């Protein structure tokens, strides 16, 4: 960082001497988003000095719908379908966390088979989200094939989720007490076949995208977020793991059946944009292993959900439960006052926490590095706005 800043300040001084302009005259303010093709539902105002970005101000909130407030008006079951809206591609994870919190408040445990199915849906959902994210990372760097391939392969996982839950993306599958329904016939075989095929495809992604010398030239050593800075900024998920902190909620605080699953926390120590793009790929490989183990260890029969009455009353109190979503730790802080409706729900989402790294990394980088840094942060604007 400091090296780049010195370079910028030297270049500025030199340029000011030649042109005799004031500093403000040299800066050009660009509004990136919300109609910009490289921003998503999000805006950040940047000021560029030549090709260097010298000032960044994120401005989220274009898709804010106040679902923390909405939660206070509905009971726990009614909350599930609208809680998954922020990340419909990762819907099984974002409802997972809320379900865990409610189960903790009510004081029940989910039947074992239900726990396995819930974890299975969560892994499928994570894979589908990561593929979507990877597709957009590809097109942001101008690699159109990398846009189409993951988006096409995601369809396989969407099909699986559709067989499992009945809906393509807005699943509303994990509810307080377990999952909504049992797995259909022949699902295990189909799931294993798709996952085996998908693992082969991951190798091809590596060949066409991650081993491409032009991509490496573009992303390696770009947007370095050192371990100290990552900890200081409190980032999470793949951004944190790419900075060398092996933190994965599934491992450090196993929920449901994850303490019976054997998997590694994938992390890299290069801290750059490439690592932040590569760690999700490694995660996808681990997810494939996890899915195999889940299918292997799943009990053959049993209940999938603890039957709760619709207006279930929880004991007064509060809880904070988190799961590992596609974007990192996703926690729900639920306060209950004993009525069927939660008193206060606060979602601590990975996107919102990773957003803080955006101004930190973009300041001092080149304009051409903007998409490589911005989308490597695993930032999902809709989730951050909630």
């Amino acid at each position, binding site marked *: 960082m400091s090296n780049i800043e010195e370079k910028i300040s030297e270049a500025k001084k030199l340029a000011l001497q030649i042109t005799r302009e004031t500093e403000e005259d040299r800066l*050009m303010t*660009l509004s990136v988003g919300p109609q*910009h*093709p*490289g921003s998503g539902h999000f805006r950040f105002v940047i000021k560029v000095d030549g*090709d260097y970005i010298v000032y960044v101000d994120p401005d989220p909130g274009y898709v804010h719908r106040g679902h923390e407030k909405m939660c206070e008006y509905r009971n726990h079951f009614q909350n599930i379908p609208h809680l998954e809206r922020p990340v419909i591609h990762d819907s099984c994870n974002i409802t997972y966390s809320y379900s865990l919190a409610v189960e903790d408040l009510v004081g029940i445990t989910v039947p074992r088979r239900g726990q396995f199915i819930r974890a299975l849906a969560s892994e499928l959902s994570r894979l589908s989200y990561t593929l979507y994210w990877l597709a957009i990372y*590809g*097109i*942001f*760097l*101008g*690699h*159109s*094939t*990398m*846009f*189409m*391939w993951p988006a*096409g392969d995601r369809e396989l996982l969407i099909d699986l989720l559709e067989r499992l839950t009945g809906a393509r993306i807005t699943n509303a599958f994990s509810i307080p007490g377990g999952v909504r329904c049992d797995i259909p016939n022949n699902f295990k075989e189909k799931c294993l076949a798709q996952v085996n095929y998908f693992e082969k495809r991951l190798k091809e992604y590596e060949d*066409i*995208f991650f081993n*491409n010398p*032009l*991509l490496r*030239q*573009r992303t390696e050593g770009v947007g370095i977020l050192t371990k100290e800075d990552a900890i200081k900024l409190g980032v999470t998920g793949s951004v944190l793991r790419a900075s060398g902190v092996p933190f994965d909620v599934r491992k450090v605080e196993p929920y449901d059946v994850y303490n019976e699953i054997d998997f590694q926390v994938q992390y890299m120590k290069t801290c750059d944009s490439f690592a932040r793009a590569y760690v999700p790929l490694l995660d996808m490989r681990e997810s494939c292993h996890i899915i195999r183990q889940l299918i292997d260890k799943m009990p053959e029969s049993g209940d999938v959900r603890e039957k709760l009455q619709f207006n279930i009353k929880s004991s007064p109190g509060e809880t904070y439960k988190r799961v590992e979503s596609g974007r990192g730790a996703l926690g729900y802080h639920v306060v209950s006052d004993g009525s069927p409706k939660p008193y206060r729900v606060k979602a601590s989402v990975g996107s919102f926490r990773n957003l803080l790294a955006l101004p930190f990394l973009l300041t001092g980088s*080149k*304009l*051409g*590095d*903007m*998409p490589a840094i911005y989308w490597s942060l695993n930032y999902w604007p809709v989730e951050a706005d909630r």
Partner: protein
Amino acid sequence: MGSLTPDFRFGNFVGSIVWLVFVVLALVTLLILPIIFFVLFYVPLPEVDGEVLTPYLFFSMMVDPSRTLPVVQFFIHTDLFRAAIFPGFGFAALIAAATIFIERKLLAKMQLRVGPLYAGKVEGIFQLLADGLKLLTKEIIVPSGSDKPIFWLAPIMFVSTAAAVVALIPVADGWVVADVSVGLIAAFAILGFFPLIALLFSWSSNSKYPFIGGLRALHQMIAFEIPFFLSALPVVILSSSLNLTEIARSQNLFMNIFILPINAFVFFISSLAELERIPFDLPEAESEIVAGWLTETTGMLYGLIQLGSYLKLYALAGLFVVLFLGGWSGPQIFPPELIPGAHDSNLPLLQMLALDGLYNPVTVNSIFWFMIKTIIVILLMLIIRGINPRIRIDILLHTGWYKLIVLTFINLFIVLMLIYGGVIGPGGLISIR
């Protein structure tokens, strides 16, 4: 496929057709026929084979094969035909259209999708037509703060400049629009206009993203123009001529690419950069600067610039073929007559099909080989788009200024050594002439 609207009535449909026919008839009687008569009254008709080309003669030529060919031949040898249709604009535009279609289909196959499918029933072959019609019917929005004359003029300048490069490319011996003795220099000079047009257009749009895109285009094209020229220099030394026809003709023994592989590579990379194609499409990088210098284009202005850039793609592929792949040289595979003994036959239809007087086996063979080589080069340029990401501006400038320029000199020195060693060149062991 589509469904009828709820208030559809067959009577309305028939009525609209009758109304349309009535309008057409009225237009023809009131407007078109008088114009034709005025024209026929004042304009002297041309003379073909000692006869005045009256409408009667013209129509009789269309049915009588013995009278057909002179008209076509007369037309083919005019400069207008060359500039507008065959080696010039029309031909190049057709190739450009085919290139766009093939690019979309090829890219789609690489990316496991189907590409254009519905327009034209068969694999979407009329997709381009549909896109063109759509672009034509769209409103052209001119930004309020823009410099309007330049804003309107720049897309047209872009297309005409691209067409001017096309005019210099010979597709066969003698088949070139402008056979100038400094053809290569002229081609480079005309290509040098493109960054200026991009900058003018981006500046006249009075918008931020186009401005950055225009500056990027300027940087990129200037950085790559020098290796572009330098890579063509050994070709000129080898063939001792700047005329593109001469350069192509001088390679009838072997192609330049066998002596100059590095230069051919540099030329290829530089032409990708000149064309602003991936991985060098920085001036239009959509995730950084929206659409670069094309951000404010709408409707047909955008269509014209796309047409121009694909014309340019054809022109640069053709230039690559002429400079390095021996132009139109290739084994003679076409027979001396299209249908042997047909022009001696009594059957008029067979006489027509023989294309006697039009069919020249050497020219057709040349055009065939030129087309094959050009299409291969174009395909190479297209495939790169499917497998590479965009690179960054500083890496791009570094590549242009430091790496490619140095690479061109290596091959230049090799050629000079071979010439002074008496291996190639005039009077060498392997004489080109």
